[in-house]
């Protein structure tokens, strides 16, 4: 969603210019993207001029379409949800840029120009300080001819950037898509594809058979929705099917909400009490039986061939019958219901527990599908809250459609929309190819050293016929499996998409998982770059999400396991709406561990960098600051420096600013406290991010 929108487009064009020869982390420095009118999306008019870049914290987007953007396509009026802008009405690529901003791809420019050196690989230079707000002095390094509409790019970007915009030509100007040489970034791409699309993978629910590419936010397999009554109020959320009127493709929505889906014959998961899928019972019974047989049964077998076998089989039968009865009763007794704003879960046979979960406090929603469950077409739905280990609702198992529908309904409620709102559309953001994942996971010092050691041990063991090496080789192998094979299997087929209902991550093959992190739920972000990954130009992005605690945190807090550095900072700007990490000026530390240590404080965000070998960048928006510490050890006191630590909700990210002058550190503490105070005063919580009142968010 975000990268398709107006505001980020000029930014990314500038990024592409900077990428040539320079590793730029994200947006063009100093640029404020123009705002756009919203989407899934409340079309709210007030708010800060900058607005929110990802458009789903609805309050602060202006109504007017930004300058330079003309409505694309026939039959579409002025006030459009921004998503329409990305739908190229014609086959011309130039029309794609009709909204007035380029849609540069994340690959190298098309061969139409003599283009800059290929940037499909990792940016050659590392170690640059992108968030240091370096001025837009990157030379426009591409000579590809800019598409004509680019010259009419919105005036919002800084003039220097505008020239870069025009000059990047990274927009595949008039060249047809298939000729894209984006090395390995995917074959033919439909036009209007969002910019940061290294590889194109069409997901089923947003597959677009339309020739031009993306459709507006409707699953294309559905019939056209009934037309809205003229002047339909903003609060119209669900229309019954209107058989009289002829369907009008595509209707101009006068209401900010997407058209309601037609009546579906299946049970509406968003109303009434429902039970889990019936296949849960045999699955549970099967698992209990297997576990029992594998543990006790095998032990009993040892009692003797005849007697032991019959005893084992008999006991297993008894256990499975008992568990069958119990599972049926438990299945019968477990219901869930989606009420106004709450998910009510009733469980328990003897002791009935009714758990009411306020969805406005939702932190994350996951759909997990282990292997067997995948085969059967089921899924497990996990709703994460901020209540610690017990703050989780697990529904095992639902059919996949039900789980997806329920997930959409839960997120709609959390966003403040009605439960029947169709699932929010999404824009693909990043696809992690297996080769890249494999290479990056392998190319780390612990993995390389561990495997070398393991091989050496095995070689020594073979050469000297010494079995004792197994004592060292086996733990090493286990560690390698955990550190290398684990993430490899876990993050196979990783795709990240942006959507009004949050960041969607889909990954896994043996155990598929779909994580959704709603907007505003990320408390802090940490971008880690181990020393060898500097050569590859990739980083890992981890986030503090309040719902992921304990072991779930280690599982789920890595949002992007391997991602090019630029994309990581793009995502940061999407996850923290209203911030512009690239433009934060970083002040280096007086006496840190390395020259990389730096701290930058903006109006909205705090960025710290530290690390000698493994570089860590931590980004904390002021509104998420929980407390601030100033720490001074004896050695630091001698050197006259101190450290500032900014705490947020628990998670991998914890902002440490090391090596600051003592007086400066005190000033930093005061400044951050003041910014945090302002930010808290100005913001509502992230609940109901589409329909809440007009208070600028994230400031």
């Amino acid at each position, binding site marked *: 969603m975000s990268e398709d929108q107006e505001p980020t487009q000029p930014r990314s064009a500038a990024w592409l210019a900077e990428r040539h020869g320079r590793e730029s982390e994200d947006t063009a420095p100093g640029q404020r993207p123009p705002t756009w009118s919203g989407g899934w999306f409340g079309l709210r008019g007030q708010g800060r001029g900058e607005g929110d870049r990802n458009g789903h914290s609805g309050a602060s987007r202006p109504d007017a379409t930004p300058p330079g953007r003309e409505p694309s396509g026939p039959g579409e009026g002025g006030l459009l949800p921004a998503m329409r802008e990305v739908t190229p009405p014609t086959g011309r690529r130039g029309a794609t840029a009709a909204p007035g901003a380029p849609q540069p791809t994340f690959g190298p420019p098309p061969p139409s120009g003599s283009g800059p050196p290929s940037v499909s690989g990792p940016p050659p230079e590392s170690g640059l300080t992108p968030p240091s707000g370096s001025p837009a002095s990157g030379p426009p390094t591409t000579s590809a001819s800019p598409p004509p509409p680019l010259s009419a790019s919105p005036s919002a970007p800084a003039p220097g950037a505008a020239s870069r915009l025009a000059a990047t030509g990274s927009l595949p100007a008039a060249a047809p898509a298939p000729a894209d040489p984006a090395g390995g970034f995917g074959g033919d791409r439909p036009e209007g594809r969002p910019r940061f699309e290294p590889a194109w993978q069409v997901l089923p629910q947003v597959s677009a058979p339309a020739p031009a590419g993306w459709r507006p936010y409707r699953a294309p397999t559905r019939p056209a929705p009934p037309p809205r009554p003229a002047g339909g109020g903003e609060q119209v959320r669900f229309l019954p099917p209107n058989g009289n009127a002829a369907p009008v493709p595509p209707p101009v929505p006068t209401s900010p909400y997407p058209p309601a889906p037609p009546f579906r014959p299946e049970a509406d998961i968003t109303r009434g009490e429902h039970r889990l899928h019936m296949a849960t019972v045999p699955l549970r019974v099967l698992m209990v039986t297997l576990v029992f047989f594998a543990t006790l049964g095998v032990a009993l077998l040892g009692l003797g061939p005849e007697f032991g076998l019959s005893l084992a089989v008999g006991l297993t039968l008894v256990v499975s019958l008992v568990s069958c009865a119990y599972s049926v009763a438990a299945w019968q007794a477990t219901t869930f219901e989606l009420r106004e704003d709450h998910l009510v879960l009733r469980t328990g046979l003897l002791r009935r527990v009714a758990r009411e979960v306020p969805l406005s406090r939702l932190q994350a929603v996951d759909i997990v599908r282990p292997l067997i469950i995948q085969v059967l077409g089921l899924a497990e739905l996990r709703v994460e809250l901020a209540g610690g280990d017990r703050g989780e609702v697990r529904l095992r198992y639902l059919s996949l459609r039900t789980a997806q529908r329920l997930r959409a309904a839960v997120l709609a409620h959390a966003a403040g929309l009605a439960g029947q709102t169709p699932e929010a559309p999404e824009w693909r953001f990043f696809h992690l190819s297996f080769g890249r994942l494999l290479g990056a996971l392998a190319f780390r010092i612990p993995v390389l050293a561990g495997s070398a050691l393991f091989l050496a041990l095995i070689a020594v063991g073979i050469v000297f016929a010494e079995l004792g090496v197994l004592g060292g080789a086996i733990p090493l192998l286990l560690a390698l499996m955990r550190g290398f094979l684990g993430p490899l299997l876990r993050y196979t087929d990783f795709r990240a998409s942006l959507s009004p209902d949050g960041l969607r991550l889909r990954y896994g093959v043996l155990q598929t998982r779909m994580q959704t992190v709603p907007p505003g739920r990320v408390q802090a972000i940490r971008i880690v770059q181990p020393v060898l990954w500097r050569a590859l130009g990739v980083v890992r992005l981890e986030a503090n999400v309040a719902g992921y605690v304990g072991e779930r945190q280690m599982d789920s807090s890595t949002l992007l396991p391997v991602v090019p550095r630029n994309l990581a900072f793009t995502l940061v700007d999407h996850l923290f709406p209203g911030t512009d990490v690239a433009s934060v000026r970083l002040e280096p530390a007086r006496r840190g561990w390395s020259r990389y240590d730096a701290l930058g404080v903006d109006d909205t965000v705090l960025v710290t960098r530290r690390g000698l070998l493994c570089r860590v960048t931590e980004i904390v928006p002021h509104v998420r600051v*929980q407390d601030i*510490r100033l720490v001074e*050890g004896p050695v630091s006191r001698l050197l006259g420096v101190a450290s500032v630590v900014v705490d*947020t909700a628990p998670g991998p990210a914890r902002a440490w600013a090391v090596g600051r002058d003592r007086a400066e550190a*005190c000033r930093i*503490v005061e400044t951050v*406290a003041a910014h945090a105070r302002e930010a808290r005063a100005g913001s*509502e919580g992230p609940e109901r991010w589409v329909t809440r009142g007009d208070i600028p968010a994230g400031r």
Partner: protein
Amino acid sequence: MGVAFAAPPGSEWSRVSRRYVWYRRLVLAAVLVPGGGAGAFLVGGVFTAAAGAAWVVACVVLGGLGWYAAVLTGRSWAYAEGQADLYLCHGVVVRQLVVVPYGRMQLVDVTANLLEQGLGIATVRVYTAASTVEAYIAGLPLDEATRLRDRLAMRSETYSTGL
């Protein structure tokens, strides 16, 4: 040797009670006296008697150092209630200043273990959503601790915001 950092503008540091020094000394004694005695016997039994005597001497030296270190510790604790934040300061070797905004306080506790109860002091703990981190002030007189807790609870409601 006073408080390590400057007070926030508009307020002064408030110190903890003198009895906190005695609390620290008593805790130290509770550790060193049995440790020294039993250790002396053990060491003297396993090694030579001179080693046991050396152990006792070491314990006495530690006790003396701790006696005066308790004064330093007691002097290093301070708190100040700023406009929108609570400032806490503590530590002698590793000195820390913690700023906790009122709006971020989830819980405020007053706790006192047996020894603290005997001395009439208490500890105020402030919990935020960053649950791994604890901000606390030890050694406040009990009534001051309860008054501080009430003030903090009232302010945290006034200033509270979402997570």
